């Protein structure tokens, strides 16, 4: 029953044939509770391997030790879809010589599959695995639910190492990734901190402004003409988006609308919608809370899908292309409806596209919920600091001061106006925001590129430049 099990992460690295200059990959299903990336990079550094590319579907603050590996040139390049603020700040201040390559959750699997961003060794954190590498995210103390983002890595990396803290007898029943892709299996004490993997409950906002925007968002959906039997829907895990999901559920239950599917990162609120008959199924690329994890484990209508199936633009078809409505957030929106989710208004990296531009491109109605201002900063502005999702893919912006419809959608604009919704030109929202905050002076940035934003189809969308050190 030894199978592919090797004694340590170090041994697996050696056996994989990893050498300097290669690319290693990681998924982010353990989110800010992930131990695996740090454990692997520590061993790689100890082995004296350097000049690596880290190809991770997302990076969180728990991965801050990466900064040391960057300093010592163990890591010289990063490819990712999302980077949280602490790492982002260091990168923005110029921690790396080579710019980070940001892709999207659909663009990443596409780049892996087409060979634009190949992987030498994939390290797959697995909450349950057998000795042959049949593995799943649904079981064990570190359960995270879906392993959707790890599929392209498993299927296309030259070598695949599964790292688990829950080694079970062969065969694991209900695997996600089958043994056919796996070279080595390593058992460790813990692959992550359950508290950081998924939150116990994701809470809807109690902020009255967020609730107000959520109720506007639902009225937009109601009057869009899309809310009928067969309806499909995705929403983020932000407070206002979750409130919108809850309000939408109330409408669908009241009006007995039977939707088709809920998509994306799945929260308990979408699980509630499934259970109350709002959807036939959930297509889950990532679970955000314990309720979603429990549901994907026990409810056959709650399906795990790969990142590619979710959003790749180069497969034969993917789920985002069947999406009716997506609700998304923004750190900035400009008067051309371009959205920034990569940087703050000062130009410091604090996020990334994730599935933002994939779903915006695919959905029939892509809606942004954003307040007019946060603290002293206007959110609706002349020009976003960074273009994450191009304005041509955004249909509606919902703020507390009114709803702006992209002029590309005159019919939708008429529908919403006729429904008595407060539809205003986006320039008016910008003016209202600046009336309160003033027009902030844009902080100067340097002329060294610290990150490239690559669209889901592989073109350069924008470049992020270095900012002064704090």
């Amino acid at each position, binding site marked *: 029953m030894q199978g592919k099990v090797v004694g340590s992460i170090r041994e697996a690295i050696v056996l994989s044939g990893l050498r300097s200059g290669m690319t290693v990959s990681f998924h982010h299903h353990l989110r800010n509770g992930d131990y695996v990336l740090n454990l692997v990079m520590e061993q790689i550094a100890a082995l004296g391997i350097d000049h690596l590319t880290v190809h991770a579907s997302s990076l969180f603050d728990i991965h801050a030790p990466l900064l040391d590996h960057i300093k010592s040139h163990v890591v010289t390049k990063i490819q990712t879809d999302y980077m949280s603020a602490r790492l982002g700040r260091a990168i923005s201040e110029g921690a790396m010589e080579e710019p980070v390559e940001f892709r999207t959750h659909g663009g990443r699997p596409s780049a892996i599959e087409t060979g634009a961003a190949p992987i030498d060794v994939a390290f797959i954190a697995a909450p349950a695995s057998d000795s042959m590498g049949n593995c799943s995210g649904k079981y064990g103390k570190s359960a995270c639910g879906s392993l959707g983002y790890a599929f392209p890595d498993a299927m296309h990396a030259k070598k695949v190492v599964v790292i688990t803290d829950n080694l079970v007898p062969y065969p694991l029943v209900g695997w996600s990734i089958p043994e056919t892709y796996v070279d080595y299996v390593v058992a460790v004490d813990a692959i992550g901190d359950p508290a950081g993997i998924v939150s116990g409950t994701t809470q809807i906002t109690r902020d*009255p*402004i967020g*609730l*107000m925007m959520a109720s506007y968002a639902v009225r937009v959906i109601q009057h869009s003409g899309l809310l009928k039997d067969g309806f499909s829907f995705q929403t983020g895990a932000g407070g206002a988006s979750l409130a919108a999901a809850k309000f939408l559920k109330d409408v669908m239950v009241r009006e007995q609308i039977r939707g088709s599917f809920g998509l994306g990162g799945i929260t308990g609120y979408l699980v509630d919608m499934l259970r109350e008959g709002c959807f036939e199924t959930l297509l889950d690329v990532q679970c955000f809370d314990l309720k979603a994890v429990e549901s994907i484990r026990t409810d056959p209508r709650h399906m795990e899908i790969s990142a590619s199936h979710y959003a790749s633009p180069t497969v034969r078809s993917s789920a985002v292309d069947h999406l009716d409505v997506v609700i998304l957030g923004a750190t900035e929106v400009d008067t051309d409806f371009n959205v920034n989710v990569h940087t703050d208004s000062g130009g410091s990296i604090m996020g990334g596209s994730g599935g933002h531009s994939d779903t915006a491109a695919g959905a029939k109605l892509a809606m942004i919920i954003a307040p007019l*201002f946060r*603290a002293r900063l206007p959110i609706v502005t002349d020009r976003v600091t960074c273009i994450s999702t191009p304005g041509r893919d955004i249909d509606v912006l919902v703020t*507390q*001061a009114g709803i702006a419809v992209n002029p590309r959608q005159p019919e939708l604009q008429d529908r919403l106006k006729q429904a008595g919704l407060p539809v205003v030109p986006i320039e008016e929202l910008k003016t209202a925001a600046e*009336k*309160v905050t003033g027009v902030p002076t844009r902080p100067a940035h340097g002329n060294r590129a610290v990150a490239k934003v690559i669209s889901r189809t592989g073109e350069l969308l924008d470049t992020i430049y270095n900012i002064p050190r704090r």
Partner: protein
Amino acid sequence: MRRSMLFIPGNTPNLVVNSPYLGADAIIFDLEDAVSPGEKDAARILVRNTLRYLDLGGQETIVRINAIDTDYWQKDVEEMVAQGPDLLMLPKSSRPEDVRTVDEAITRAEERAGARRRIRLMPLIETALGVENAYAVATASPRVAALFLGAEDLTADLRCQRTKEGREIEYARTRLVTAARAADIDVYDTPFTDVNDDEGAWRDVETARALGFTGKASISPRHIQAINTVFSPSQEEVDYAYEVMEAIRMAKEQGRGAIALRGKMIDAPIVARARRTLEMAREIGMERSEA
């Protein structure tokens, strides 16, 4: 038109800047109970600057100053009057003398500030003595534009539990409505304080309207829609008001004195009510439904 009044703590910048967007007819910037003693100055400065700089559109502005048994109220009056809010709300208004004391302070402050229009007063009745003195308080000064019932402090003073059903404040409610109407001013009901109970809020708003209140205050933006809806005329009421006005116009043309509509005599109170309904309908953009 003032159906809904929303309390916004004077020391919460995020809510204060968003006050134009919360749907309330009037905003009550609170310097009193929502603001702890250590924050009084900060709140006063924030509210002062808000009144000075923020475009509140057509919203009415009310400032709840501190009660006259505190050390804060005179400074509140001094600084707020200079910014010209529409009304000042005076908490714990128990006796007509309380109102007159503040009235005089406002007059002095208005003279110093060279104010062009007279700030009105909304006494907050929240003591047993205040309830018993309601008519005297309502008529204590020509500035008094409305009475406002505060049930939380009142029930403490009455030594009874505050309940969602509100049987304990039935007397105070009807007493205030009667006193305010006798003085020909408006009258506002106490907030429903469970922000998570939407159904309870609707019921409480409907009770207030049935008793004759002009409108109701809220501590949560969530209840504003209920208040605005319940205190707006229904389509049937608007249509009936149009019919009443038409009937009296036709009667005048034909030189008839007594008029009947739908088998009922139209008398002066019905006409007055119809006029008020149509005035409100115009303000909120309601029209007669197509026959």
